[in-house]
C-alpha cells in the first residue's frame, strides 16, 4: 500500500494500459465489454482514493483479467501483480525481505517451501471468513492461521495411452510397476534438485517407501529411468506424446491431460491420448498469506478473502490447471473427465520436508550417480 504520487500515477497509467489492451483485443470477450467500460468511468473520478495492494506471485500464476477488473471495480483496491520468479525464488525473496516486504500479499508458496517461510516470520496471521468453505482436508492446513490454502495440484505419472495401445502392452498402474522390467527404458523423471515436480515425485516415493526409498530408486535406475533437468525438457523432449521423444511415461501433473484438451489446435478434441496414473501422486498445496510489515493490512486481508472467493476459485482451474481449495466449486468438465482424480495422495509433513530435503537430495544424487 504505497500511496506515493508516483505509484498512484503508475497504477493509473497501468490500469489505462490494461483497459487499452482490452479495447484492442475485444473480439473474443465481447460479453465482458460493458463491465470494463463502467470500470473506466468509475476509476477516473475516484483514482486518488483507491489503494494498491501488491500481490507477489510466481511465474505460473494466472487469473482472468475480468475477474481481477471486477474486484478492482467493486472494492476500490487496485491489484498490482509482482513477479517473484519461480516459486522457490519468490519464497527466498520473501524470506530475505521478512519484516520489510516487497509486496503486501504473497500467493503460491507451497507445502515443500512453507516451513522456512513460517519460521522466518514472513507472514502476518489472518483467518479469512471464507475459510469456512474450505474442503475438509484443507481446513486445518492453515499453520495456526498464518496462511490460507488457495488451491492444490497433484504431481502424477502421466502415460501416453496411444503408445501402449500400439505396442500391445498394458500401461503401468502403480509405482511398483515402474520398476518392473516390462517398463524398462520407458520412464522419464525430472532431477529433484532443479525441478519442482521432480522433487514432488521424489517426496512421493519417500512417503510411500519410507526408509526403503533408496532401494526403489535403485530399482528405477536398474530399469533405465531417464532423468531430465526440467519439466519442459522431460515433457517436450523425452515424452512420446509431447514431442519427438521415445519415453511414454513421464512425471507431470494430474491436470496435464485436460490441459492437452484446452491447449489443442482449433476446436477442442473430444478425447486425449494421455492419462494420469492415480497411484503415487504427491499433493502440492498452494497458500496465500499477508506479508508481515505490509502497511495496509486491512486491504491485504480483503485480497486474501477475494482469492478464496467463489469467482476466483471458479476461475482457477482453467487458468492455472490446479484444483480450487473451496469445497463448493463445481469443476469444469475437462477436469471431471480427464484429470486424474486422486483419492489418496502421498503427503509428507511440511516440517519433515524442510528438515530433510537437503539430505534426501544428497542421497538421491549418490543413488543415481548424479
Amino acid at each position: 500500500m504505497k500511496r506515493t504520487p508516483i505509484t498512484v500515477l503508475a497504477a493509473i497509467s497501468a490500469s489505462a494500459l490494461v483497459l487499452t489492451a482490452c479495447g484492442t483485443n475485444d473480439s473474443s470477450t465481447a460479453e465482458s465489454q460493458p463491465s470494463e467500460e463502467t470500470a473506466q468511468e468509475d476509476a477516473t473520478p475516484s483514482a486518488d482514493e483507491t489503494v494498491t495492494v501488491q500481490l507477489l506471485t510466481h511465474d505460473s500464476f494466472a487469473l482472468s483479467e475480468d475477474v481481477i477488473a471486477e474486484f478492482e471495480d467493486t472494492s476500490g483496491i487496485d491489484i498490482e501483480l509482482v513477479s517473484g520468479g519461480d516459486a522457490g525464488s519468490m519464497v527466498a525473496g520473501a524470506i530475505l525481505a521478512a519484516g520489510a516486504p516487497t509486496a503486501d500479499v504473497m500467493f503460491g508458496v507451497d507445502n515443500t517451501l512453507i516451513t522456512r517461510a513460517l519460521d522466518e516470520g514472513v507472514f502476518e496471521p489472518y483467518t479469512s471468513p471464507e475459510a469456512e468453505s474450505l474442503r475438509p482436508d484443507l481446513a486445518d492446513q492453515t499453520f495456526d492461521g498464518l496462511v490460507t490454502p488457495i488451491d492444490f495440484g497433484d504431481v502424477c505419472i502421466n502415460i501416453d495411452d496411444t503408445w501402449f495401445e500400439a505396442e500391445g502392452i498394458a500401461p503401468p498402474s502403480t509405482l511398483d510397476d515402474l520398476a518392473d522390467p516390462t517398463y524398462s527404458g520407458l520412464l522419464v523423471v525430472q532431477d529433484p534438485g532443479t525441478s519442482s515436480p521432480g522433487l514432488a515425485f521424489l517426496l512421493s516415493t519417500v512417503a510411500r517407501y519410507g526408509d526403503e526409498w533408496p532401494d526403489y530408486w535403485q530399482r528405477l535406475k536398474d530399469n533405465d529411468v531417464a532423468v531430465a533437468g526440467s519439466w519442459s525438457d522431460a515433457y517436450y523432449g523425452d515424452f512420446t506424446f509431447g514431442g519427438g521423444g521415445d519415453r511414454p511415461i513421464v512425471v507431470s501433473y494430474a491436470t496435464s491431460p485436460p490441459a492437452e484438451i484446452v491447449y489443442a489446435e482449433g476446436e477442442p478434441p473430444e478425447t486425449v491420448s494421455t492419462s494420469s496414473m492415480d497411484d503415487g501422486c504427491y499433493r502440492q498445496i498452494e497458500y496465500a498469506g499477508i506479508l508481515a510489515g505490509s502497511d495496509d493490512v486491512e486491504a491485504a486481508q480483503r485480497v486474501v478473502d477475494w482469492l478464496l472467493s467463489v469467482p476466483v476459485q471458479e476461475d482457477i482451474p482453467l487458468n492455472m490447471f490446479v484444483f480450487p481449495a473451496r469445497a463448493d466449486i463445481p469443476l469444469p468438465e475437462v477436469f471431471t473427465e480427464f484429470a486424474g482424480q486422486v483419492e489418496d495422495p502421498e503427503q509428507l509433513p511440511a516440517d519433515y520436508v524442510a528438515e530433510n530435503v537437503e539430505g534426501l537430495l544428497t542421497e538421491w544424487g549418490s543413488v543415481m550417480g548424479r
Partner: protein
Amino acid sequence: MSHPRWLSWTWAVPALFLVAFLAIPLASLGREIINPGTASYLLDPLPWRVAGLAAGQALVSTALALAIGLPMANVLTRYRFRGRRWALALATVPFVLPTVVVALAFRALLGGSLGSGFAIVVLAHAYLNLAVVVRIVGARWITIDPRMELTARALGAGPWTAFRTVTLSALRPAIASAAAIVFVFSFTSLGVVLLIGDSSTRTLESLVLRQTSILLDFQAAAVSAAIQALVVGSVLVWAARQRALQRGGSARPMRLIRPRGRARWAVGAVAVAAALIVLAPVLALVWASLRSGSGWTLAWWSGLFGSNTIDAGSTRIGSPLSAMARSLTFALATGVVAAVVGGLAAVSVLTGRIGRAFAIATALPLGISAATLGLGTLLAYGRPPLDLRATGLLVPIAHALIAVPLVVAVATPTLRATDPRLVTVAANLGARPTRAWWTGYGPAMRTVMVAAGGLACAVSLGEFGAASFLARADGPTVPLVIARLLGRPGEASFGVAAALAVVLVIMTTTLVAAVDRGGRRT
C-alpha cells in the same frame, strides 16, 4: 598528448552506475545473509568441486566457440559478398535465442544420439556464444590492413607464418577478450545446464539457484556465489592483462576485400557453413511453429497475431503483441544506457591510471548470478522507501548492467589500437582539446559504440533470469512468455512458443541489422 580535461572525469558516470545498481544491491543482500559463521561454509568441498567441473566445461566450450567463431568473424567482417550485412546480423541470433529454445532445438536436431550431458551442453554453449566471438574479434579484425600480411608474404614468410606473426598477433587481445567472455558465460551458465545438462555439467550458478530456491540455505549460496565471482574476476584480470599487450595499428575499418580465385570458394564455404550452423536451430523452430499433430497448420501463428489470441483474457501470458512492444522498448533503452555507460567506461580505461582496476570492475556484472542480482535489486529498490518496480526501469537497468561488460570488451581493443598521434596532430593544427580528441577517436568511437549498442539490444531481447525477478507479473517480456508457455502442457503451448521464438529471432536480426546499417552511415 593532451587529453581534454573532461576526459579525466568520464569514469564518474559508469562508477556511479555500478555503485547504484551493482554495489548497493549486493550490499543489501550481504547485510541480510552474511555473518561470522558464513566463512565456515568455505570448507565445504561441494562448491569447489562444482567450480572445477564448470571450469573444465567452460574451457571446452570456449575452445569450440573460437574454432567455429574465428573463421566466421574473418569472413563476415572482412569480405564483400552479397547478403553480408544480414549474415552478420544473423550471427547475433544464437546469442539471443532463449536458452530453453536452444536447448530444445538442439535436442530436436541431434535427437537421442547425444541426449543430456557434457557433449550437448558444450555444443549449445559454443553456439550461444558465437556472436560474442564474431562481434568482438570482428570489430578488431576489420581494422587490420590486409596489406600487412601481404608484405610479410612478400618478405618470404609462409602463409601460416605470415598469418600468425601479423594478423593473429594483432588479434590476440581481442581473441583474449572474447575467450574470457565466452568462458565466463559458459562457467556461469544456468538455463542450458538446467535443461539439458547432467551431473558432469553442473555450474556454481545452478548450485546457487538450488541453494536459494530449494534448500533456502542462503549462507551456502553466498559462498558459492562468492567463489563464482572470484573465478570470474581472475579470468577478467587475465583478459585485461592480455588487452594491455595491444600494439598500435589503425582503428579505421579497412575496405572490404573482394574475394578472388580460390578465396571465393573459401569465403563461400565458410559463409554457407556459418549460415547452416546458425540457422539450423532456427529452421527447427520454424518447422515446429507450422506443425501440429494433424499436419501443417497456421494455428500457432494466428494464436500470436490473430483474432483468437492464445490465453486472451488471462493474465498468464498477456498479449503477445504487447510483450513484443515491451521487449523492444527495453532493448532500445538497454542499448542506449549500455552504450553510454560502457562507452564512457572504455574511454576512462584508455586514459586514467585507475584504468585497469576500473575495467575489471565494469566487467564484474558478468560474474554475478542473475538470482543474486535479482534478489539484491529487489531488496534495494523493490520496497519502501524506494520502490522502482512500477517505473519499469529496473529491467533495462539490469540488462544494461549485463551488457556494459560486453560494450567495454568490444570498445577497448579498438580504441586502444587508435593512433593517439592523430590527437596530437589535430592539436598542433590548432584544434581545441575536445575537438582534437574527437578527431582522433571520434570515428572509432562511433563505429564501436554502434556495434556495442547493437549487442546490448540483443542481450536485452534474450535475457531471462533478471527479467523474471524484475518485470511485472502481468508485463512479461518475450522470453518470459516463451518460458511460461513451455512450462505447461498442450500442443498450442509448444506451437505458439515456437512461433514466438521465431518472432524473437526476426526482431533481433532486424534490430541488429538496422543498428549496423546506422553505424556504417554515420
